[in-house]
């Protein structure tokens, strides 16, 4: 397996086009923190973004920044923190915090902050891609408000590199909050837990994150507030949690580790991680499914996204047991486990996705087969 790591955008595009004209398929590699996302055949050319690792632009006053795809997310976040800013994204970063900006955007990965700020598609302002014919194309812009042209940055976000290789990404920044506080409440009844989440999601608390953790018939709710008055607001949230029937309520000002744990439970080396998406009101069913399949679950209660960690042999029964309206995507899996990432998908929208792929990557060179429907 040949690995090439071009050091310029032009070089990257040229390598991609050269591989395409040789009829070779290409796998695009970021930090390699999600091996399941880009399994490569032996004859594929692996194009790494590792040397595309510079900050293209960051004017603090604009609250926007443009990063080359290979910039490690943790490094970007550290740089921004020096200016009192952050990316409002907190996906798990994998071994040695290896995940890159490009990889996170390409896989649409996110963490607890998705409750308030959405996923990468909600944060990207502009994207520069290399297409398989060697074209370098920009779309979007570097200002936060722009409707010139199609919003292709959203199309590339979460496309798993199947349309082209992301070379650079412009993102919206937020101010680092003055202070945060996390309120935790525990319970052993899935309906009480779901009721508390439903209440908190509808209340005007302006929560940064509203997460659930669940394992073997018990779990809890985690809510984060941020701002100047975080501590006093945390008391209000704690009161509401108690009202909803949650017990063992706790407030933590130094709350980083709780969220690190939530993020960490979205990943696994030894078991399979299944992302279940759908209506947030389906939370009680998801909790019961987790128990039935001996799963550890963390998720975004207000959004309707849950990560279930299960034994690989449980994946298909779990998928089959999903109520209508819920969808399952298999993320991490133990090395060697043969699991269907997307499950069966058909319908006119899948055909439309196929047509999009055919336009952007007509030769089927870029990460082909990694998207739903084998696209």
């Amino acid at each position, binding site marked *: 397996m040949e690995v090439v790591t071009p050091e310029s955008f032009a070089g990257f595009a040229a390598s991609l086009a050269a591989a395409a004209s040789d009829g070779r398929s290409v796998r695009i590699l970021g930090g390699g923190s999600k091996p399941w996302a880009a399994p490569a055949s032996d004859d594929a050319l692996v194009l790494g973004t590792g040397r595309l690792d510079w900050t293209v632009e960051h004017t*603090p006053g604009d609250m926007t920044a443009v990063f080359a795809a290979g910039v490690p997310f943790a490094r970007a976040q550290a740089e921004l923190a020096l200016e009192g800013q952050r990316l409002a994204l907190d996906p798990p970063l994998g071994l040695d915090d290896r995940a890159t900006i490009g990889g996170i955007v390409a896989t649409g990965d996110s963490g607890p902050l998705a409750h308030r700020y959405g996923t990468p598609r909600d944060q990207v302002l502009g994207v520069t*891609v290399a297409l398989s014919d060697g074209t*370098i194309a920009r779309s979007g812009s570097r200002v936060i408000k*722009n409707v010139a042209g199609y919003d292709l940055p959203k*199309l590339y976000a*979460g496309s798993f590199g199947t349309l082209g290789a992301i070379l650079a990404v412009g993102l919206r920044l937020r101010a680092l909050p003055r202070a945060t506080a996390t309120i935790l409440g525990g319970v052993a009844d899935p309906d009480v837990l779901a009721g508390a989440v439903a209440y908190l999601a509808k209340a005007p608390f302006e929560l940064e994150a509203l997460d659930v953790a669940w394992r073997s018939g018990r779990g809890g709710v985690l809510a984060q507030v941020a*701002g100047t008055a975080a501590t006093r607001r945390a008391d209000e949230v704690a009161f509401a949690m108690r009202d909803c029937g949650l017990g063992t309520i706790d407030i933590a000002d130094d709350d980083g580790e709780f969220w690190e744990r939530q993020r960490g439970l979205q990943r696994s080396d030894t078991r399979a991680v299944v992302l279940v*998406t759908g209506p947030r009101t389906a939370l009680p069913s998801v909790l019961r499914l987790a128990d039935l399949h001996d799963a550890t679950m963390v998720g975004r209660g207000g959004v309707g996204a849950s990560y279930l960690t299960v034994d690989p042999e449980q994946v298909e029964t779990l998928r089959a047991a999903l109520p209508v309206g819920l969808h399952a995507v298999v993320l991490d899996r133990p090395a060697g486990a043969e699991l269907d990432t997307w499950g069966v998908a058909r319908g006119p929208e899948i055909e439309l996705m196929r047509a*999009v792929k055919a336009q952007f990557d007509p030769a089927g060179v870029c990460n082909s087969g990694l998207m739903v429907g084998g696209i």
Partner: protein
Amino acid sequence: MEAEQLLASLRGICGDDHVVSDPHALSVYDSDGLRQYRQIPLAAVLPASADQVVAVVRLCARAEVPFVARGAGTGLSGGALPHIGGVVIVLSRLRQIISVDLGEGVVIAEPGVTNLAISAAVGPSHVYPPDPSSQLVCTIGGNVAENAGGAHCFKYGFTTNYVVGLDVVLADGTLVELRRDRPGYDLIGAFVGSEGTLGIAVRIHLRVVPAAESVRTVVAFFDDVAAAADAVSSVIGAAVVPAAVELMDALALQAAEKAVPGGYRLDAGAALLIELDGPLLETAAGLEQLLELCLSGGARDIRVATEVGERQALWATRKAAFPAMTQLSPACYLQDGVVPRSRLADVLEAIGRLSVEFGLAVANVFHAGDGNLHPLVCYDPGVPGESERAFELAGAILRECVARGGSITGEHGVGVDKSAFMSEMFSDDDLDSFARLRCAFDPAGLSNPGKLIPTPRLCGERPGPYQQHPLEQAGLATRF
């Protein structure tokens, strides 16, 4: 298919009363809010259901007739301009709110429902944040097509951040269901803001959010726009996240306050209208910080609205700025451009320079938080050459925005009005990537052709990577 035959088929689908083909009656549909561009179509149809939209689009596809969907026609870029010999599909009869589910935080609506009706359906506990100025009449279908913003999108985001599902009729009449929570490409993201060129949304799922616990509204008066613009940067830099930050220069301020008095000072060089919302404890702290920053930024007077009526009056004046300007000048051209926020003061200075150079007054009212300018170029169409000069000036302002790393449109869209400016912002390769998306959705190019992309290429004409010609392979020819 002959025109008469097409009209007969359209009547068969929508009923005689809902197909307009008399040229005089069609003048209602000859433009959108940008009256400079007008065109009488072959017909306008008013379908009553998604099924009828599908049937109309299928018919257009078979007859190879272009069509354009139309909401309330409040767009400001000619996006809903009809096509010669084409069909306008008016969606005003699809105006049902299908469901309101606050547990899920989702409203499902037909495209003809107005923007404000969504918030009305979920209030007072919840709100639908995108709030374009025309929200009383503009429709959700149009908002989706244009990715509508509004004054409060600095904190809350745009239409695209709230659409979680779309049922779309593609240009060949296929109905597709797109949902945010289903795996696959983000086709909703691609569709929102596509200006009617990728199909017609016939059912729209919108996320709604809990209404803020408290709202604080402040007006700060400055000596000039540069000082006001700098104050915006210091407020945002200090981690205060206002829900809205609106800036008016002296010209706009005077016109607006005279038309709809809200208590603004007439002797100020610029006014900043700032709104904070959120939990009570946060807005209280934020307000203190905000006042301090405005004062240290040179504000010479500050007013804090203490009751709802006062707050509404301040907003009423701001929203009256555009109509008020049109009263003061025989005609106005409303421009829409964006600059990175740190370049605000700088671009305003350039606009001032251009105004002098062209000899035309320019009033500035804009969403300062996100650098979205709305300069109003005032002119008199009765004076020979002045209309042309006004458009030239408006174009020159856009170039100033692009030169500073900004955009040619922040919320009005490209439509027909700005398609010529797309190449100022994008290279041919960039534009070609847009064309690829369009070809995937609408290879025949029937859904609102001529908008958004300057000169669409034919679908299927896709140069692949360089390949040797058979003659080259055979060694019989060489390329130099």
